[in-house]
């Protein structure tokens, strides 16, 4: 009877396994390189080039050389280029179908390098939300003279202060005249003065009844009584004169003011049609908005590139059975609750170093805890990168992206870039009416994204900035000249809102001041014409009422009458002494 086991079969099996292993080992590097090119290209949406891959099973490491990843937004440029990339792989995690890389050393990383051939692919990024900052930028022509109204309509609709003041003056004059006339009636009348005259004559004619001494004593007593009465009346007249004088002065002053009121009306109406603070702010946005918007958008876009990678599996709840969205030859992949405390993809530590070529952006620094499932790893993603470039003296980017708890995600990004050469950023300002041609800018940015809510502040400090304008424009010419005169100026950008609907606000006290000067200078001609017409309309409305103002003759007449009364009384008083 034959043995149930075929020893030769076992040998054949071992031989087959050995053959497959040998083939794999021989072609492993080729398979890995090919796989990385294909997968990387599909993931990025643009061509990924790789010179060679070298797998070492003994040291559990993989070395990649000459890796170049095309910028999906610019097919003739690489997003980055790496001369050598060495990976230390955690083999134990592979048994769990997880890719854990303990360390990646990236040597000679260069950013934004040109490509000899196009790296374009059919697939495009679809998950990047395009955002247009400053959608409602005010057109330059909308600011200023075009907004000046018809002076006639303006005056007709306006509540002129001159007319109101004339009415007030008339009312007050009438009231004063009534009041003073009433008071005047209380003063000694002509009859009283005549009585004083009669009393004086009577006293002078008094004989004393034969007794000379008694006669003198009696006369003295009468004189004293007369003097007292006259003095009392003179005091009344004096007080009244003071009051009259005060009223005359007050009304006289008002009368003079009324003559100048049309000018005040002109100033008031003109000020309503000068540029407001908002207008000036819009001007800053109009001139620098597109440029700043492009820069902010670029940063926003990079952040969005990163987020889907970080949160690839984040939307799934590990406690539930999840169905993958893609079909493979093995069918749909169903994910169950994963109790293995490791993310599917994790890179614990990345060390980046660059050759200082001077031609491209060079970066040095570290990135830690880069994973597709931050909720399954106990450390947040951190990065600390610094570098320089031909167009930039130095930069430092540090960030902590904490997505371990999606509901409480917190990202902190700090960027400090010093000495960006403005001339190299003219392309980024394609939509801007004014383009930088020389000078430097320092960028200090601090952006926090807490639970999808943005709160960021970016300060741009321009130094010796020169600008050029492509199409001649009177506004821009003045702004350009004004900017050239500024040694430094600062623009602050405040980013708020949600990730889905961000908004940015630009402000700059330096530029506001400059803008106001420019506007003042530019609007002077338009405003002068407007001012003349407006003044003519105001005069037409106020000249009539002003020329028909009531006189203050009554008060003058009262003054004259008072003087006469005073004179008469003083005469009697003098005789009574």
């Amino acid at each position, binding site marked *: 009877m*034959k*043995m*149930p*086991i*075929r020893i030769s*079969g*076992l040998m*054949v*099996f071992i031989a*087959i*396994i050995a053959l497959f292993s040998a083939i794999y080992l021989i072609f492993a590097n080729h398979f890995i390189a090919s796989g990385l090119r294909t997968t990387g290209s599909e993931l990025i949406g643009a061509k990924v080039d790789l010179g060679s891959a070298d797998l070492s099973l003994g040291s559990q490491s993989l070395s990649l050389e000459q890796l170049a990843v095309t910028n999906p937004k610019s097919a003739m440029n690489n997003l980055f280029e790496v001369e050598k990339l060495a990976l230390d792989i955690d083999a134990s995690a592979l*048994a*769990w*179908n997880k890719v854990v890389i303990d360390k990646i050393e990236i040597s000679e990383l260069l950013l934004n390098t040109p490509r000899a051939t196009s790296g374009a692919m059919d697939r495009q990024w679809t998950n990047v939300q395009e955002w247009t900052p400053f959608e409602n930028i005010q057109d330059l022509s909308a600011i200023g003279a075009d907004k000046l109204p018809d002076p006639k309509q303006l005056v007709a609709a306006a509540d002129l202060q001159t007319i109101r003041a004339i009415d007030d003056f008339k009312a007050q004059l009438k009231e004063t005249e009534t009041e003073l006339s009433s008071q005047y009636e209380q003063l000694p009348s002509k009859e009283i003065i005549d009585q004083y005259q009669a009393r004086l004559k009577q006293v002078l004619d008094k004989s004393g009844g034969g007794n000379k001494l008694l006669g003198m004593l009696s006369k003295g007593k009468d004189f004293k009584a007369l003097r007292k009465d006259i003095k009392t009346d003179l005091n009344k007249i004096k007080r009244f004169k003071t009051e009259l004088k005060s009223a005359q002065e007050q009304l006289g002053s008002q009368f003079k003011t009324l003559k100048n009121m049309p000018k005040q009306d002109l100033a008031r109406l003109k000020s309503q049609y000068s540029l407001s603070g908002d207008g000036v702010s819009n001007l800053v946005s109009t001139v620098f908005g597109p440029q700043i918007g492009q820069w902010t958008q670029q940063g926003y876009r990079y952040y969005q590139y990163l987020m889907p990678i970080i949160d690839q599996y984040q939307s799934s709840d590990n406690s539930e*059975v999840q*169905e993958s969205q893609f079909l*493979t*030859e*093995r*069918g*749909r*992949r*169903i*994910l*169950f*609750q*994963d*109790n*293995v405390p490791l993310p599917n993809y994790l890179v614990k530590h990345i060390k980046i170093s660059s050759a200082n070529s001077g031609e491209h952006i060079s970066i040095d620094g570290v990135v830690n805890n880069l994973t597709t499932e931050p909720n399954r790893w106990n450390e947040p993603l951190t990065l600390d990168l610094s570098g320089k470039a031909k167009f930039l003296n130095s930069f430092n980017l540090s960030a902590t992206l904490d997505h371990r708890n999606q509901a409480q995600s917190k990202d902190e990004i700090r960027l400090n870039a010093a000495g960006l050469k403005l001339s190299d950023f003219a392309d980024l300002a394609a939509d801007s009416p004014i383009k930088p041609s020389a000078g430097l800018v320092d960028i200090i940015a601090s952006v926090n994204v807490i639970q999808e809510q943005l709160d960021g502040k970016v300060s741009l400090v321009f130094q010796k900035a020169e600008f050029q304008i492509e199409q001649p424009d009177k506004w821009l010419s003045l702004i350009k000249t004004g900017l050239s005169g500024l040694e430094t100026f600062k623009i602050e950008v405040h980013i708020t809102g949600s990730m889905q609907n961000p908004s940015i606000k630009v402000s700059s006290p330096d530029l506001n001041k400059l803008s106001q000067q420019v506007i003042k200078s530019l609007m002077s001609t338009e405003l002068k014409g407007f001012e003349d017409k407006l003044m003519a309309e105001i005069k037409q409305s106020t000249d009539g009422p002003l020329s028909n103002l009531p006189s203050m003759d009554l008060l003058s007449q009262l003054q004259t009458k008072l003087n006469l009364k005073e004179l008469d009384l003083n005469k009697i008083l003098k005789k009574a002494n």
Partner: protein
Amino acid sequence: MMQIIRLLKTLNSDAAPSSIALAICLALFIGLTPVFSAHNLIIVLIALLFRIHLGTFILASFGFSLVGLAFEPLLERFGYFLLTNDAMTSFWTALYNTQLGRLSLFNYSTQLGGLCISLVAFVPLLLVLIWGIKSYRIRIKAWAEKSKLIVILRSSSLFQLYEKTGGAS
């Protein structure tokens, strides 16, 4: 044509019915599940290690691959039904959290559908095939050898060439 001749040759040979039946049943796994799967390595090892008719195994593997291709949507749906069945979630979860489970890729619908169908069909098919081969040899073999079809096949130039190259045993 060659495959049919070869199959008839095998059936008519002295090979044990169980050896032929087992070869066909093991081929079921190869045919109904993706070839490069961990369990197929074990299937190949069994096929080589035990005295199983290798010719039949290879032939049946090709045959079942065509069947698997035709029924792939059904296998996928069956696997999906099993994987998403609430009553089985705890079992799949436990399996998913073992290294063997992860390496088996059981959590792919087509893979699990094909594997389960193969496992379920294995024993009944084995018994049916053993009975069938035995019955063939007793009842049909003599008649078939004399049948016109076989005579024509045997006399064909292709068969002559096949015999000359030692293909028929």
